[in-house]
């Protein structure tokens, strides 16, 4: 790794950013999400935190431009230079500019905005280019499906931590996030402590999501397949919160944080991600724990903390009278729920390494199993 001459760095840990304008290649929400995720890559290995402002002068001003755009480093049309950014400092220092003659995307085609933004924001934080081909700060653009969720190399981590130090091990004000490691652990199918992030059906198959991966159990092959999420849906994040199939629409909705995506098969639908509040959640809801669609009633149940909401998929509106307490309507199910599946007439609630089969007619838990019993463990 290397740093800019003089090793300029931000002299504070809380840094503001502003997205000044947008490319027309992507929905605004997608640009917002890509930038947020790119900053989180660096946030997770340093004491730095980032907050977005919508007007005025932020530390890092992010913009899209073509050709000459006022800084004597003009862009050059399609290809070659994709973007550039300035090291920490006042005024235009710290800012990141993206060449809007590129075709910005969130997948492997075109130019992946998330990947380029993560690199450029490394400059905004003080990193120069690395000659390590495996590093995010290597100057030449290389997209691979494995980079869809970007893992910093040890070189990148050493570089940024040479400027800011490591992330504090305990900080009451920091929301826990999955740690970024140069050597990510792969979940083990029959680990007795295995829990799932989200579970859903998709066209008759069962999908069990965990971190960057998912198991896929098809009806004609009980032995589950194991895949990277990014191999199927490059633009989806890892560490999902919830997923469900609204199978009257042949669509799976996938949730993480305050956003959700719609996928049909292995295609992420245009116009996503959207904010969960467009479904009718109040602003106080920041994320969904679990979601499940009940086909017979065409209702979707969203579980958040100790409560749940019910969504009418026909009217596309939240039902009145919600939220309600989970324990009132699902006796025996304790919050917080990790994931829920509806199959064979039962609800399967996943909580940690345990799974509770709930009979909605009897309103009781009928079986308690290990979460990974679906994986033939």
């Amino acid at each position, binding site marked *: 790794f290397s740093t*800019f*001459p003089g090793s300029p760095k931000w002299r504070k840990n809380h840094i503001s950013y502003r997205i000044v304008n947008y490319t027309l290649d992507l929905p605004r929400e997608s640009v917002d999400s890509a930038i947020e995720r790119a900053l989180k890559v660096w946030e997770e290995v340093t004491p730095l935190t980032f907050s977005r402002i919508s007007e005025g002068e932020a530390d890092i001003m992010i913009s899209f431009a073509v050709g000459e755009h006022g800084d004597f*480093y003009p*862009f050059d049309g399609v*290809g*070659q*230079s*994709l*973007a*550039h*950014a300035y090291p920490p400092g006042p005024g235009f220092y710290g800012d990141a500019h993206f*060449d809007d003659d*590129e075709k910005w995307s969130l997948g492997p085609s075109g*130019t992946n905005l998330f990947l*380029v933004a993560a*690199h*450029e924001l490394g*400059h905004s934080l003080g990193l*120069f*280019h690395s*000659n390590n*081909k495996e590093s995010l700060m290597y*100057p*030449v*653009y290389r997209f691979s499906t494995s980079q869809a969720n970007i893992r910093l190399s040890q070189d990148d981590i050493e570089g940024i931590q040479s400027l800011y130090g490591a992330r504090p091990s305990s900080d009451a004000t920091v929301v826990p996030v999955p740690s970024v490691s140069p050597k990510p652990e792969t979940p083990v199918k029959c680990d007795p402590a295995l829990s799932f992030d989200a579970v859903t059906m998709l066209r008759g198959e069962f999908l069990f999501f965990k971190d960057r991966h998912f198991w896929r159990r098809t009806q004609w092959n009980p032995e589950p397949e194991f895949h990277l999420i990014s191999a199927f849906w490059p633009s989806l994040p890892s560490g999902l919160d919830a997923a469900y199939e609204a199978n009257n629409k042949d669509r799976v909705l996938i949730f993480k944080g305050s956003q959700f995506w719609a996928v049909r098969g292995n295609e992420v639908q245009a116009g996503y991600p959207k904010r969960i509040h467009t479904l009718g959640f109040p602003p106080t809801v920041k994320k969904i724990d679990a979601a499940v669609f009940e086909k017979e009633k065409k209702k979707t149940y969203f579980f958040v903390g100790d409560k749940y909401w019910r969504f009418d998929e026909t009217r596309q509106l939240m039902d009145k009278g919600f939220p309600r307490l989970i324990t009132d309507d699902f006796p025996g199910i304790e919050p917080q729920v990790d994931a829920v599946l509806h199959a064979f007439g039962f609800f399967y609630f996943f909580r940690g390494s345990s799974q509770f089969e709930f009979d909605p007619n009897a309103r009781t838990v009928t079986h308690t199993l290990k979460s990974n019993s679906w994986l033939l463990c």
Partner: protein
Amino acid sequence: AYPLHGAVRQDHSTMDLAQQYLEKYYNFRKNEKQFFKRKDSSPVVKKIEEMQKFLGLEMTGKLDSNTVEMMHKPRCGVPDVGG
């Protein structure tokens, strides 16, 4: 017949690309354009070697096919050397 003996047969566009690339990313100054000096002492050759070393290419000092291919790849606009 070519200034850099053993290099891939170049047209003007490749030479222009190399010049622009070295100027933009490797601080190659225009008054050091000396393609016709002996290859082992040419500042251009040394600059090409510097680029090849940084980008993980074989340091041939020539605009070989791998080097030309690398120069055509999309990349960050920040230089690789200097400030």
